[in-house]
């Protein structure tokens, strides 16, 4: 699933943009160095193919539903991880711009979840070792399935982490994970099937097309992306772990009563361990976030009726003014 701006905080969005940006820059540099001018039209046309292919559904055997290709893994298999990242980033950009599929701030996160992870984790670490030189169709299918499933699980995990770290949702991490991971297991399987079906056909018809992705494997973009992400999220997660266990406690208590005391401490404990493992800057706090959290905490449970009413009145007034201005401008034209 695509991350949305509405669930993102500027800090998390910014971090993910930096991570994806670093990966794209590294891949871009790599492609420039290779100086293969055939890539220019090729990447664009194959990108257009992925864009179109995402809208073609096939029937999933056994179930009554249908699925379609995502394309990250297929692109990596066809073009190599560097070109694949640039292509999938452009497909995501078109979707964000024209179809509101994921926001512009969230684009960084989406490029990371749906681009960096399949191209630089799933493809080299899972697909290539399993599928080998591509001569056995069984191994190709297996490699595609495993790589797609794991890649999408990682992507889903990414979405969860980014959403929770942003703090806009009240959804606790455990519930969110429980919702996202199984669904993405199914989606990953679908992706694996679709990818394998296409790769196997191409292998039969034009095996030479699958050779182009062999070549030096550089994990630099991956390291760049993760390096930046880790440095900054380490701090963010530590802040989150320090603050939100209270928030989580609150919502969980209120959602299901005190019975959840045990699982709550489990989450809390995990978070603390995570924090210790990741925080390079344990005392780093995102000042804006901290400032945001305080007024929220102070405004509830102390509910101030006067403020509520003023807010309501002011809000209505603002809406009226803004609408008038907007339509007024329009009519003048």
């Amino acid at each position, binding site marked *: 699933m695509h991350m949305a701006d509405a*669930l993102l905080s500027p800090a998390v969005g910014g971090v993910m943009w930096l991570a994806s940006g670093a990966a794209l820059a590294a891949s871009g540099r790599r492609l420039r160095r290779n100086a293969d*001018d055939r890539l220019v039209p090729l990447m664009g046309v194959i990108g*257009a193919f992925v864009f179109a292919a995402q809208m*073609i559904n096939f*029937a999933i055997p056994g179930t009554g539903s249908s699925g379609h290709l995502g394309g990250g893994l297929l692109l990596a298999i066809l073009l190599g991880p560097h070109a694949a990242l640039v292509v999938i980033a*452009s497909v995501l950009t078109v979707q964000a711009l024209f179809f*509101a599929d994921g926001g512009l701030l969230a684009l960084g996160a989406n490029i990371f979840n749906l681009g960096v992870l399949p191209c630089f984790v799933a493809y080299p670490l899972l697909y290539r070792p399993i599928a080998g030189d591509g001569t056995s169709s069984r191994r190709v299918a297996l490699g595609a399935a495993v790589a797609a499933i794991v890649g999408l699980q990682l992507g889903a995990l990414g979405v969860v982490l980014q959403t929770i770290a942003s703090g806009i*949702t009240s959804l606790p991490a455990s519930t969110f994970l429980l919702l996202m991971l199984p669904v993405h297991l199914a989606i990953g399987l679908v992706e694996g099937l679709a990818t394998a079906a296409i790769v196997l056909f191409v292998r039969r018809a034009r095996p030479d097309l699958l050779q182009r992705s062999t070549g030096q494997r550089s994990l630099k973009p991956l390291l760049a992306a993760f390096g930046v992400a880790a440095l900054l999220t380490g701090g963010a997660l530590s802040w989150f772990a320090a603050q939100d266990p209270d928030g989580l406690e609150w919502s969980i208590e209120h959602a299901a009563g005190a019975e959840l005391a045990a699982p709550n401490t489990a989450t809390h404990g995990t978070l603390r361990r995570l924090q210790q493992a990741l925080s390079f800057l344990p005392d780093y706090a995102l000042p804006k976030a901290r400032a945001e959290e305080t007024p929220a905490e102070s405004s509830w449970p102390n509910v101030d009726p006067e403020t509520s009413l003023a*807010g309501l009145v002011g809000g209505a007034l603002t809406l009226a003014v803004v609408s008038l201005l907007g339509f007024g401008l329009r009519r003048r034209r």
Partner: protein
Amino acid sequence: MSRIDAALRELRSLEALAARDTPLARVDPRAKVLVTMAFIVTVVSFDRYSIAALLPLALFPMALAALGDVPAAPLARKLLAAAPFALFVGIFNPLLDRAPMLVYGDLAIAAGWVSFASILLRFALTVGAALVLVAATGMHPLCAALGRLGVPQVFTVQLLFLFRYAFVLGAEASRMTVARELRSCGRGMALAAYGPLLGHLLLRAFERAQRIHLAMLARGFDGELRSLWAMRWQGRDTLFVLAWCAYFVLVRAIDMPLAAGRLLLGAA
């Protein structure tokens, strides 16, 4: 009409909107990109319970839609179509966050509903701004602007080519899927047909890419894509950026609706 045809139609309609000469179209695309990003960051920087405080920001997409003569109905339609994910995650807020937050006499509204409304508002604002950006800018100026703002040429050229050939490949894909459907007697597409169908589409894409490359070589292509596109940053572009950013800062710093509300209630 298949999904692909519908999608291509969307692309065409937004581009057609962007191709018109409106006051907004004359603003440098770099300015529009920068301000839109600043807007989105401002919107998401509010805390999760902000509703009224966010409202003054609605002026931005509305004013731009007006200046760019972007019709409201298609925009609203796209917003609704894209809502599901935000809704899906957001709906958990009211379920989990039940502390009362707003009290009007006997009526107590849970904090979760407030944050849910905030999510919806954020969604409308950010997505609305992005759509207006596209409807007023067009793919070519947008990519040129990105290039001038430092995005590597590999990416911007790629984006332009993808956009250019999305129509060609989309039309091919649409024809192929319709042709299959006509012989499918109502059955869905099995993997056994999916592989070859998409495989053929892919192979044709490769061959087309080869032909395009030949066509580029035939006209002297040497690896470097040069452009005639000239962007001239003018005074009004600086004004555009500064004015809007100042407004965003103001809205972020002062909760204007609250102040206005208090003023009104105090006066009453």
